[in-house]
């Protein structure tokens, strides 16, 4: 087991090195750190001097190692537009994105679990059939279209819910939270529902098919033969065993939701990391772009590694097949 964890972690470190190398190459070839520091109004002679002082004329590898050392200390360069360290810009935007992902994950769990279980138990019921055909349609609707439709119905036509921004936030230990005010919660409803809508069809299908497979197994037949109540068989015997694959997929899909926050945040003008990233692209803010790449890459690598290790702990088959 220890060997498995060590191998998985060293793999994660390798991936992080590759990401940082890509990030550094972008910064080195496209970005202009001198401009990031002093702006456009400096003579070429002074620029050359600054370049030299910053060590930008050193060999590629020397600069890369310096970049790595700085990155390890949490210094990912200065954002040209914000005139602040890129990492602190990202961290100031992170709460908005994390809250959005958190709320969508909650919606995802509380909708997909009951619906998935129900459609597995009663596959011929009209509700199940409706859900299954609706889920094919759901997969085909891009998230930004769902978001726009929600805005049109609930903000423009009905005028029930706000369509953009985070609303009122409270500062709790350096974390700007919209979860604690009524206004902030109201602003969260539409974005988190549209973000959850991408994963919902997939999850309902996954839970349904896993559950249906387990309902066919011998021990469930035995549980029925024992004369247990349907509730007990479904929820205690069958449902527990569907959870294992569902949890793994859930871990990975949460990471994928981060990718879709870029789309959701654009539609709702949500001041999070994804919105910031697109602004950085428009302003050619290379340092911020690279910092975002490294941070999001790190989130993915950590999530994937943790999920893999948990899965390895729960399911010995993974450890053993992985070794050969």
């Amino acid at each position, binding site marked *: 087991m220890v060997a498995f964890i060590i191998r998985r972690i060293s793999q994660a470190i390798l*991936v992080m090195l*590759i990401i940082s190398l890509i990030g550094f190459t*972008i910064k080195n*070839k*496209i970005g202009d750190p001198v401009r990031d520091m002093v702006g456009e109004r400096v003579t070429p002679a002074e620029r050359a001097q600054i370049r030299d002082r910053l060590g930008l004329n050193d060999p590629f590898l020397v600069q890369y190692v310096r970049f790595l050392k700085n990155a390890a200390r949490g210094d990912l360069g200065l954002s040209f537009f914000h005139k602040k360290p890129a990492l602190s810009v990202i961290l100031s935007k992170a709460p908005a994105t994390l809250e959005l992902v958190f709320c969508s994950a909650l919606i995802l769990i509380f909708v997909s679990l009951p619906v998935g279980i129900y459609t597995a138990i009663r596959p011929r019921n009209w509700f199940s059939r409706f859900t299954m055909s609706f889920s*094919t*349609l759901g*997969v*085909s*609707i*891009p*998230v*930004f*279209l769902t978001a*726009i*439709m929600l*805005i*049109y119905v609930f903000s*423009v036509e009905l005028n029930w819910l706000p*369509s953009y921004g985070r609303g009122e936030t409270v500062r709790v230990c350096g974390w700007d939270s919209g979860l604690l005010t009524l206004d902030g919660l109201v602003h969260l409803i539409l974005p988190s529902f549209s973000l959850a809508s991408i994963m919902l069809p997939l999850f309902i*299908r996954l839970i*349904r*098919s896993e559950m*249906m*497979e387990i309902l066919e197994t011998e021990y469930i037949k035995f549980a029925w033969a024992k004369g247990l109540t349907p509730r007990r068989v479904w929820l205690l015997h069958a449902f527990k065993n569907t959870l294992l694959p569902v949890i793994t997929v859930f871990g990975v899909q949460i*990471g*994928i939701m*981060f*990718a*879709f926050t*870029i*789309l959701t945040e*654009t*539609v709702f003008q949500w001041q999070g990391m994804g919105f910031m*990233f*697109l602004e950085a*692209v*428009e302003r*050619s803010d*290379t340092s911020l*772009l690279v910092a975002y*790449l490294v941070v*999001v*890459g790190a989130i*993915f*690598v950590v999530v*994937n590694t943790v999920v893999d290790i948990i899965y390895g702990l729960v399911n010995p088959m993974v450890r053993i097949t992985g070794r050969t």
Partner: protein
Amino acid sequence: MSRTWRRFTSSYFLYSFRRDWVAMSSFSVLLLFLAVGLAAPLISPYNPWDAESIDIMNSEIPPRWMAEGEEDFLLGTDVQGRDMFSTMLYGLRLSIVIGLGAVFLQAFVGITVGLVAGYSGGKTDSILMRIADIQLSFPYLMVAIFISAIFQVAFGIGRYEDLAVPLLIVIIGLAEWPVYARTVRAAVMGEKNKEYVEAARVIGLSGGKIMFRHVLPNTLTSVLVISTIQVANAVMSEAALSFLGLGMPVTKPSLGSLIRSGFEYIFSGSWWITFFPGILLVVFVLVINLLGDWLRDVLNPKLYKG
């Protein structure tokens, strides 16, 4: 030719196709879309890419059947005064070209990598597949957004917009090839120890010839199954990128950029600029997905679940 035709007409494939009305209707809708999209310059009443035919005075006219609609514009006009119907046809055409182009590219890269990795095995295999695995651990949309962001910063927005179609094909192709590589490799691993491969080796054929002429045709079923889904994915990615402003420019809008430009005006009640391209996009992706589901069930009954 006639024998192949007869084999096709009496095949299980066609039989199950004709019994499944969902597959038949989605196939006809898809054919209609392809035809309309590719013939867009012939069918559409206006040329939305021609700045001279656009009159800004015509902007935001609602569809014909509404009170303020005009006879000339069936589905109304967008903000710049372009006829929605024509612009949508041109947009559909772009989505089809980019979607198919991207799938060809990723299939080419992915199949080559998968074949080489699966057939050679050993070090080559583990290096190539490790690369594919690393990329697969990131969602393809994220990868596509990153690559296009980098391209846009590197090329500058003006040149990026000029080169948007080939660049988008490359971006989406690069973002999704590992899916093909994994699928083909798995199929090759199953095939390469069979007797016909050994026979080919015994008569002294080269590795390349065995790979492409003997092993590849036997892996094409699984390639076909994922290809339909991948086309749908590519079309969706293109729409998402264009919506974010990282894809087709507003002067030559694809469906995604049309939705983007319409979204800004949805608060003033001009719903048709967003709604019609949106419906077109959803129906297009939906029929491809339905066909893909059907194809998977027919060609690979073992995979069928749920």
